[in-house]
């Protein structure tokens, strides 16, 4: 089902086109993800699992996981959550592994590029809040910047954040994330910044510091003097029986589907996780006219901001703390879920089971840094639960243990978008300065960024963040001394 009207958003749609799904004719809007078009047509089962032939739908909706692989125009293993719909596309359920021997595949070509290696001062990977600010501030210092993103739009996950941001004026408080994306995109010097969209960085070559990039089926090589990795984070999964049923989505995936593509994820939702994402997405589901039956969290307390919790409570949505999922049920799609209470030792209590008829479960149990490129580059990583998992060891300038590689935003430790923006500025400033670029304002701007971060992280809600970051910086200091 598609969202007809929305209190915050208006949806820009391409022209109506026909396509086929397993031989059946359907229609969608040109340019929307195939998965969104299928969902709007009531199709949630996209493929069958390799061994047990279980139905699978999408999970992340932004091209991170591989839950949505389908056969499109004969080509297997296409991520339909990001692949754009075109007229007369032939979309088929993928069964098992995709067969490449009979597949019609358009090979990635490097012919036009040949042996050419493009040069740039600073490559910023990821154009979300952190990457955009990194590009803006590095450019302001005078560096030549190449900004890369695998999506077709600037803004990263800002483009689905319909709520007003917290923080202060400097971090665009009171402005909706979607509008901040526009503000930041307009601040970019588009003439002098090399913006590469639909461009996936597929590899970092340690030997010569070259980035391999796939863009529109071409293979491009860039050798930057500095790299700022601002790749963000991905949504975690939660283990429970039948957690792979179509209809069980990352909360951010549901948000992408409804706020970016204007398609509702279902009718009745259970939200798992009462952190900020769980609370915010619950509210936004209600804004899209979807019923949120309950929000549960295994922790004894609400992890997100209480004001977000109060907003959903005023709408009549219950929040059950110390509750988790016992089991999900359904044949091809999610039909029902049983939740139960946990005791003080996080052990389930028999007899507390509650059944909820839901066709969607949103999983909002945290994010993990998308750090593949950092692993490739050999950056020292440290497992820090408070920051979302394996996080790069880095110094105060946001530089990792690999010289010339900087980090910013969720990949450097999962936090809020406001701190991601300031980290981006800091990384951009320091990377540019390390190449000798400085308009004379470096010191002042760096100090300002550091003070802003200190302020944002000084409250009780940031205790874990402070502890985690301190560990990373101390490890960096140690390795510098060694």
């Amino acid at each position, binding site marked *: 089902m598609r969202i007809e009207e929305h209190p915050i958003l208006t949806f820009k749609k391409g022209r109506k086109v026909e396509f086929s799904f397993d031989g059946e004719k359907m229609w969608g809007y040109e340019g929307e993800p195939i998965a969104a078009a299928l969902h709007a047509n009531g199709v949630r089962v996209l493929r069958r699992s390799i061994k047990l032939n279980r139905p699978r739908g999408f999970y992340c909706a932004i091209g991170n996981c591989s839950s949505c692989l389908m056969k499109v125009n004969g080509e297997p293993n296409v991520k339909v959550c990001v692949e754009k719909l075109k007229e007369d596309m032939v979309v088929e359920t993928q069964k098992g592994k995709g067969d490449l021997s009979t597949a019609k595949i358009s090979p990635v070509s490097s012919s036009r590029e040949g042996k050419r290696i493009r040069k740039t001062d600073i490559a910023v990977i990821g154009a979300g809040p952190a990457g955009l600010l990194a590009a803006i501030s590095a450019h302001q210092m005078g560096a030549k910047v190449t900004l890369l993103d695998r999506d077709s739009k600037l803004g990263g996950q800002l483009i689905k954040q319909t*709520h007003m941001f*917290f923080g202060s004026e400097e971090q665009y408080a009171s402005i*909706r994330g979607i509008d901040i994306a526009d503000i930041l995109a307009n601040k970019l010097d588009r003439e002098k910044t090399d913006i590469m969209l639909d461009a996936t960085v597929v590899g970092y070559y340690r030997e010569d510091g070259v980035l391999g990039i796939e863009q529109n089926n071409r293979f491009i090589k860039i050798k930057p003097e500095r790299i700022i990795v601002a790749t963000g984070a991905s949504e975690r999964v939660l283990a429970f029986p039948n957690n792979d049923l179509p209809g069980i989505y990352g909360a951010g995936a549901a948000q992408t589907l409804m706020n970016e593509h204007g398609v509702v994820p279902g009718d009745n939702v259970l939200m798992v996780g009462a952190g900020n994402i769980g609370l915010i997405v619950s509210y936004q589901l209600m804004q899209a006219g979807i019923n949120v039956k309950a929000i549960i969290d295994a922790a004894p307390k609400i992890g997100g901001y*209480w004001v977000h*919790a109060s907003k959903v*409570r005023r709408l009549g*949505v219950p929040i059950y703390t110390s509750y988790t999922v016992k089991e999900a049920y359904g044949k091809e799609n999610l039909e029902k879920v049983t939740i139960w209470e946990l005791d003080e030792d996080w052990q389930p209590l028999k007899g507390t089971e509650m059944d909820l008829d839901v066709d969607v479960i949103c999983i909002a149990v945290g994010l993990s840094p998308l750090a593949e490129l950092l692993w490739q580059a050999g950056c020292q990583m440290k497992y820090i639960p408070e920051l979302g998992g394996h996080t790069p060891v880095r110094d105060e300038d946001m530089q990792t243990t690999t010289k010339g590689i900087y980090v910013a935003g969720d990949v450097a430790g999962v936090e809020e978008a406001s701190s991601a923006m300031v980290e981006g500025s800091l990384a951009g400033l320091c990377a540019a300065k390390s190449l000798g670029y400085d308009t004379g304002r470096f010191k002042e701007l760096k100090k300002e960024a550091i003070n802003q971060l200190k302020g944002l992280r000084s*409250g*009780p*809600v940031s205790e874990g963040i402070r502890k985690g970051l301190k560990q990373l910086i101390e490890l960096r200091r140690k390795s510098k001394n060694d």
Partner: protein
Amino acid sequence: MIEKTGVPTRKDLAGIFPPKERLEKGPVAVIECFQRIPCDPCYTACRRGAIEEFEDINDLPRIDFERCNGCSVCVSKCPGLAIFIVDETYSEKEALIKLPFEFLPLPQKGEEVDALNRQGEVVGEAKVVKVQNGRYEDKTPVISILVPKKLSMEVRNIRLRRTSDE
């Protein structure tokens, strides 16, 4: 308890309600913000200096009830939608409440709607007297409703009795 339920307790509320004498004088902002989080737009939004400057961005807002005149410019700027205007002087039996409302359909002036408390339960009836939905509100419309005076500190949301614009 709010950390478990998302609903402030009587005690939480007692700490932030304007004094009775102030309520008797006219409209005033009630800021239902109980947690230290990094956020200060209420201070930036207020044009009368009624919300004190934040020393630390994580501070809870401190409001000078004498300076606040209940003008409501802060209501649509609070990212937590935690600010309400209460006017207990509206009439002998009714209080006026201004609250943020980001849902469709929007209520219309004169419409009778359900009045909800902080748990989303219907506690009475409210009459919509004004809908502010201009450029300043920026898609966080501010709805003015009339409720029985005794509900002025209970009602914090409304629910329409219709589902479409018909």
